[in-house]
């Protein structure tokens, strides 16, 4: 299933790029995240309980940065292993400057395998749209927070460099999924 769209973000492209490349911040975007572990700057894992309304779907998702052309393009693959569901997602982000903000064009190819598929495509597709929507709202919030706190890109520390992570908040953060 192909899902795509564009999102206007208030922060500058560098700030958006910084968020997209910071596993700790990206992990917080996932709905119902209960914990994450950064393996290296290209791989990290998030434990999530995706809120599906009638209950939660527990999944362990492994993210891999596949390709990047800072600060304009990033491609991310995600492999989710849950009970009764295997998710495979390729996502691409194209960032272009739009005045002081950034216009982000994103595409995602989502594949669900296993008995969850038995719920029927016409229920799954809206659910996937919904979850992608949640990720985008969380990204927007994350990006505006980042823009506000750094007042623009921190000089001298490249987001990819190891020191950038020492000052990271410890342990799993609470779910950022706002109360609907």
């Amino acid at each position: 299933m192909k899902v795509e769209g564009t999102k206007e973000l208030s922060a500058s492209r560098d700030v958006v790029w910084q968020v997209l490349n910071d596993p700790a911040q990206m992990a917080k975007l996932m709905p119902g995240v209960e914990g994450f572990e950064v393996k290296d700057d290209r791989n990290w894992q998030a434990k999530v309980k995706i809120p599906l309304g009638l209950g939660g779907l527990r999944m362990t998702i492994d993210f891999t940065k596949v390709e990047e052309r800072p600060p304009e393009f990033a491609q991310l693959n995600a492999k989710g292993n849950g009970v009764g569901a295997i998710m495979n997602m390729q996502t691409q982000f194209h960032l272009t400057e739009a005045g002081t903000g950034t216009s982000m064009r994103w595409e995602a190819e989502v594949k669900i395998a296993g008995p969850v598929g038995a719920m029927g495509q016409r229920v799954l597709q809206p659910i996937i749209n919904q979850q992608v929507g949640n990720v985008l709202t969380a990204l927007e919030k994350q990006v505006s927070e980042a823009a506000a706190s750094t007042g623009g890109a921190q000089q001298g520390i490249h987001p990819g460099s190891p020191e950038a992570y020492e000052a990271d908040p410890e342990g799993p953060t609470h779910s950022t999924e706002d109360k609907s």
Partner: protein
Amino acid sequence: MLLREVEYARPSSVDEAIRLLAANEGARALAGGQTLVNVMKARAASPDVLVDLNSLDELREISVSGETLQLGAMATYTRIMASSEVDVSRPILAEVAAQIADVQVRNRGTIGGNICSNDPTNHLPPLLVALGASMTIRGADGERTVAANEFFLGVYMTAVGEGELLLSVSVPAAANAADGFASVTIGRDGTCIANAAASLAGGAARVVLGCVDAVPILLEPAGTDEESIRQAVAAASLEPPSDVHASAEYRRHLAGVCAVRAVQQATERGR
């Protein structure tokens, strides 16, 4: 067929139910169970605690007061079909309830369960938005009323938050209201591939499409003639899901056909 472990409680009052829902993270109300139990069988999404509402008889009442027909959240489809109050004050509700699934499901399934599960193919969400219904929700900090077109937020997601309970649905009473409902189903009276509801009042038409998105899509066409209805549907630039029964293009086309037929039925009923 074999559910995950789950905790179960059967409160004897609404307030007790609300306390249980608020006190337990991952708790979910169990009404008729005709959707929730099946989702739990697939182990796709499982609540941790089930709060069974079937002892709360006060939620099964159907009553008319003044200009409003009030249906308790636990009113079953069978009870709605047999209710003289519904027949007198908004008969379309009984006619559509009679098209839902089969006798056994209608004996257990409830109006509250139907709209709170909000499966995109359900009959009642688009109908209640078209009728301008409103939902009464109670939580720890009191009651509030939400209009139908703000009630539905996503698949299996509504304005009813954690620790809250839907008490009832109120529908404006209008004996010979110009209401209509049309659908294209898998087999006779089967699951809806596309559906639409319409309610005409004072020359204006509320047309609501189901099955084309996670939530019912409310259209307010310029007129009630076929051309305005088709334009309103086109203007909505729908992106319906595609599945084995209908491509996005076919479902978009069916949405237009159902909208026109629902308005036609409403127009005839209104005469």
